[in-house]
């Protein structure tokens, strides 16, 4: 889009405000540059030329809004993404988890679920899964349903298998799924202790007494204010010494909550909540 950038900024703000007022989804505190790009990509697909037009359609056509919501909330993910992270988790976090009588794990912003199943596999191999309850949440019902189904395209499996091996996998990765034509279905036994549910980090509240929270590559889409909100939420949801795992390029260093956590593995962005009395 060419034209007056100030006007475009106003129109984009109005679009996000309209979505919030009408549907309750709050994108107003997302990092502006990346949400602008996502909205623009979507408008290209829908042949719209300005944000004002998108705003009108979002208000009056629910199906248009649903397509936009999907565009704004889909996060690219893969199984055992960043294998060295999982390796470090096995090494540095699993011993702490083995001391606990039971485990509550929150996977915030789980998208289509690939990383939830990765953690389920890791916990199984470490003999922890049977005493674990995983809460996998996302704000978008469409991707949450995909996560629940646990069906993934076969052509991704080569990468996933490599990742699994690099991540320190102990079995044969093919034991965890059944292949059908062009897709695979994750084993039912991996889903037994996973509860999939709706949760929006921008508007919803605390999830209690977690031993571990995963929120990887979600905060990069937030502005500073919303990052602080989410990190505050994580802090309030963790037990003392509970573990917070962020994405590779995410850090609590620039946040107002940085002093509430200590580094477990600085490079892999694994933190532990400091003991508060």
């Amino acid at each position: 889009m060419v034209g007056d950038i100030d006007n475009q900024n106003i129109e984009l703000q109005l679009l996000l405000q309209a979505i919030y007022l009408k549907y309750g989804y709050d994108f107003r505190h997302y990092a502006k540059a990346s949400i602008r790009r996502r909205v623009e990509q979507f408008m290209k697909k829908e042949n719209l030329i300005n944000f004002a037009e998108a705003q009108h359609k979002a208000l009056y056509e629910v199906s248009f809004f649903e397509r936009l919501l999907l565009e704004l909330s889909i996060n690219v993910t893969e199984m055992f993404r960043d294998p060295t992270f999982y390796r470090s988790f096995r090494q540095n976090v699993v011993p702490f988890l083995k001391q606990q009588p039971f485990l509550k794990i929150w996977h915030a912003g789980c998208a289509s679920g690939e990383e939830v199943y990765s953690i389920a596999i890791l916990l199984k191999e470490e003999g922890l899964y049977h005493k674990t309850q995983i809460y996998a949440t996302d704000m978008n019902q469409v991707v949450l349903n995909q996560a629940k189904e646990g069906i993934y395209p076969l052509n991704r499996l080569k990468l996933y298998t490599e990742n699994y091996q690099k991540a320190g996998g102990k079995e044969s990765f093919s034991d965890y799924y059944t292949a059908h034509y062009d897709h695979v279905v994750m084993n039912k036994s991996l889903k037994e202790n996973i509860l999939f549910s709706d949760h929006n980090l921008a508007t919803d509240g605390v999830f209690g007494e977690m031993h571990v929270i995963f929120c990887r590559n979600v905060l990069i889409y937030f502005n500073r204010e919303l990052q602080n909100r989410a990190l505050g939420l994580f802090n309030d949801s963790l037990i003392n010494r509970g573990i917070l795992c962020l994405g590779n390029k995410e850090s609590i260093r620039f946040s107002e909550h940085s002093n509430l956590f200590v580094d477990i593995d600085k490079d892999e962005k694994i933190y532990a909540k400091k003991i508060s009395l």
Partner: protein
Amino acid sequence: MQRKSHYEAIVIGSSAGGINALIKVLSVLPPDFPLPIVIVQHLHPESGNHLSQILKSKSALIVKQADEKEFIRKGGVYLAPPNYHLLIEDDFSFSFSLDAPVNYSRPSIDVLFESAVYAYRQRLIGIILTGANHDGSQGLKKIKEQGGFTMVQDPKTAEADTMPRSAIAATQIDKILPLQEIGIYLLQLVNRKIS
């Protein structure tokens, strides 16, 4: 009254052959070079931090990989991390995205350039160096449309000429220069006094 050039930032896109080209450009610039430089060099997704190490050793400027939410400082040279798109926010800080590759590339030059235009508008200099694809052309076009300054490495001096040729075809280029003259020209451009 005299004042310095009105440019506030430089964005550079490079791909195949880009590391040598970046060394040539950056090694000319003195430690007090007044503008921040933000670079997308296409890299293998797992290439880590090597590029900033290489460029750091060849440049008098402070070269680093950009951090999420880091504020851009004058005279800093910032590199996009491998496998993430790098964007500039209106408050002149960085944000990252893992959205799908653009022009088969993540980081994508177009993504950086377009976000930089929104942040810096006409106060931006965009440069396309050597490369074997078409990334950066659309971004450079946006820079031109908003009144920024566009530069392209002379394709004859490029290890791979597709990217500079594609940029030249996409928009009006203010200056096409052989590789070894780009750094010196930048110095003139930012030190030019406007009365």
